[in-house]
């Protein structure tokens, strides 16, 4: 069920440009890189404070996603067509090969689909309602089957302007995740060496 969460998150994030329904030339295309910063707050029942983390992300069509948590400590998660790898304080703690895990393939498919504005995969599980205008928009996702035990979310709400600004994921037991994005920019510069090296860590 974490998998579906991850899936939705990545899709929404990457789809941000398309979501805006703005001019085509604002969509992310091959050769471009979207960089930005995020804060993630996990609100869990029984925890006095939310679990807060912050960091940077890099999204590059044809490569994938680098999710770099910097606080409270360094966790780097990389998702590419080859699979998923996670490093904590420089030590690899997780490595999943896409060849073994069909869901990762789906994830990557969605990721690439979303980059070009393809929403069909997400719409099989959720109803999608858009509102607002190009400069300030909202998207509300609701599970199509409310009582599906495999569905980890009760509601997903996204707000954005040029990019996605805020994302809320609500779980049935009252827990919820809130992600805020800022300082996002599209660059035509190629990947840095460090970014290219990070993408290479998922190679089998």
């Amino acid at each position: 069920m974490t998998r579906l969460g991850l899936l939705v998150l990545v899709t929404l994030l990457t789809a941000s440009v398309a979501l805006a329904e703005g001019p085509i030339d604002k969509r992310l295309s091959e050769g471009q890189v979207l960089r930005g910063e995020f804060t993630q707050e996990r609100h869990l029942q029984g925890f006095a404070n939310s679990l807060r983390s912050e960091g940077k992300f890099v999204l590059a069509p044809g490569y994938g996603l680098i999710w770099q948590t910097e606080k409270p400590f360094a966790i780097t998660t990389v998702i590419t067509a080859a699979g998923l790898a996670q490093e904590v304080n420089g030590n690899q703690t997780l490595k999943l090969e896409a060849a073994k895990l069909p869901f990762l393939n789906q994830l990557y498919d969605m990721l690439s689909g979303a980059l070009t504005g393809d929403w069909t995969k997400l719409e099989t599980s959720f109803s999608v309602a858009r509102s607002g205008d190009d400069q300030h928009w909202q998207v509300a996702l609701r599970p199509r089957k409310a009582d599906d035990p495999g569905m980890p979310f009760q509601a997903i709400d996204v707000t954005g302007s040029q990019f996605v600004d805020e994302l809320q994921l609500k779980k049935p037991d009252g827990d919820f995740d809130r992600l805020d994005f800022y300082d996002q920019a599209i660059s035509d510069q190629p990947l840095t060496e460090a970014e290219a090296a990070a993408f290479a860590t998922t190679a089998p």
Partner: protein
Amino acid sequence: MTRVVALLWLVLVVTAALYLGFRLHGGLAFRTDLLALLPREAQDPAAQHADDVVTDALSRQVMIMVGDRDRGLVRAAATAITGVLTQSKLAELTTDSFGKDRLRRIGELYFPYRRGLLSAADRQLLLDGKPEAISTKALSQVFGLVGMADAKLLQRDPYLLLPAFLTGLPVPLSRLSLDHGLLALQDGDTYWVLLAGQISGDPYGLAFQAALTGALDNAVAAQREAHPDLQILRLGAVFFAKAGAEQAMGETSKIGLVSILGTVLLVLFVFRAARPLGLTLLAIGVGALISLSACLFLFDDLHVMSLLFGVSLIGVAVDYSLQYLSEIFAAEGGTPRERLRRVWVGITLATATVAIGYVTLFLAPFPGLHQIAALAAIGLVASWATVVLWLPALDHSRRPRHGDRVLAWAGSLLSLWQAPRPGWLRWSAPALLLLIAGGGLMQAHPDDDVRRMQSLSGPLMAEQERIQQLAGAAGSAQFFLVEAKDDEAALQTEETLIDRLRPLLAQGALAGFQAPAQYVPSVARQRQNREMVRRELDGPILTEHLRQLGLEQVEPPPAEDTPFLTLAETAAKDGPLRFLSPLLLQSGQGALHVVKLDGVVRPGALTTAAAGLPGVRMIDPAGDFSRLLGKYRNRALSLLALSATLMTPLLLWRYGWRGAPRVIAPPLLAVLLAPALRGWFGASFTFFDGMALVLVLSIGVDYSIFLAETSSQRQRVTMLAVVMAAATTLLSFGLLALSSVQAVHAFGTTMLIGILLAFLFSPLALAVRHPAGEDR
């Protein structure tokens, strides 16, 4: 008197026919597993029991893989196929074996004992004194992009030790993962779903095979109708058994048909009349009828292979009627009863010797061979009785006009032997034969590998290899057996074994293994784990860990005196881990565990790994069968000697010290030369060749006896009968050489060569009753 016995025989035949009709009406159960033909030898009851349980479980396993580029299509097709097989109760396909509910129940089962359960990696970190690494790992799960953050779980298990233990449990199929409730994998651009489960019936029962494959084929056809490109792969003993049974049945009917047709044509050609044909078919028919009903009475169900061998006996059963019928060509003619009197001793002796040959098969502890032996011996005796009791009464034939021509032709075969032989030939011919025999026997190498004896369907083998390649490994016939005084001792032994097997996994000597101790650590191990968790993870490091999580309070850990997780609780029949129970065998005393192995590449490395561990043995059923086959190959040769020894008094009584060797020499020469010739052509010598030689001896000695019993006036008549007898035998047994089942092919080829040689040498016995001086 004869009339009364003949009537009694009629009553018996009618009774047998009624019984056979009754059984056929009830439907016949055929056995099809080749292993049922193979020896059972309980050298070690524990190993045998484990072997049976594991083999039975393996033989009921089925795997079906559905693949296509379209994920949704594959999932729908897989669900539909599962539905068909499950609703018809033919198989229990566990698509939801790792479903949410099952995982939840597994979690609930382990939860109270979590302090004593550590994944191999976490345990190693604690042993190495790196508790902070465990803390970091847990924190990364909570804060990272990928990870679980379940508040209730964190309050009870802040280091997430139990999830690590659960994900570390062995999953048999290494390349598959759970994708929304279905076991799936991605290979290139094809998405595959695996349906694995147990069939509900006997994989070797023909009726069940037909029901299962029929239902599956229909389900697949229904899916393919809409999506013709859908790929389906199947794996399971039941599919192989069905293909094997179909092949054996196909061969049985083909060989039977050719054998009967050939015999009919031969009889028609030689006698040029319908009545001899009718009488021959009567003798064969009664033999088949009596033997079939007797076997059903004795064994309850028949093995397909017995039928295949049984069909070949048509060729031997026909010999007796041919001996009698050929007398019609004799110059002295006579009434049917007079003609019978002339061959009576010969065919009775022949029946006795063949029966002796078959009865020796009974001494081999092969259940399948018992059936073949009973089928053959009873059928032959029945044919003999029919010839002796009925044929003269039903026969009104007169000496046919073409008789002289037929006899002249038969005589020409004899002239080769009766032509004056130059002196040098007398010693050089035997010397040459001995040279051929010696040289060939030196080259014949034994081969006992049971896997080469079976012929497995090519397409199914390809599907099996593809599944194994896609899914990782799909089971292995080899396994470890762990015997100890109690479960605790067995689990401790397994823990040592597991530590030795892990490096082998990395080296690729095997693809995986499942030991009960992986699911339930020994009490000693659980106690040690609790101790380490308390010492390494409960101190100041916990306070710091909770601070980073932002958790103010956690539930107190379970008390130190909490009972330990036991095997009995884990493997309970209705529990979520019931798949463990086949690994725990009932031995009556102590504990007997199975460690299943997947994808064994280097069995030698595994044996070495287990060396020195008390009570651990590697069991290799195929290897054991091969060893037994080797043993019985030698025993077959002893049977051959025994068979010859049993015949000797009979022959000595009839032919004396000078005659008996000449009677037994032709079949003995055939028995020596047949494997030698096979050896020259590079064939190996198997148990089945050995068994064929036993029959070559007993059938071959018949030809000698027929010729030894004849007089010089009648020798051409007898020779004619022997030619026909050998021809019909070759038509039946020889045709087995065409079988694609390696074991049957070996048997058939040795029979073919042996019978041919026995026939060619048989005129050596001519001079027995009429010493050289009398013989013109």
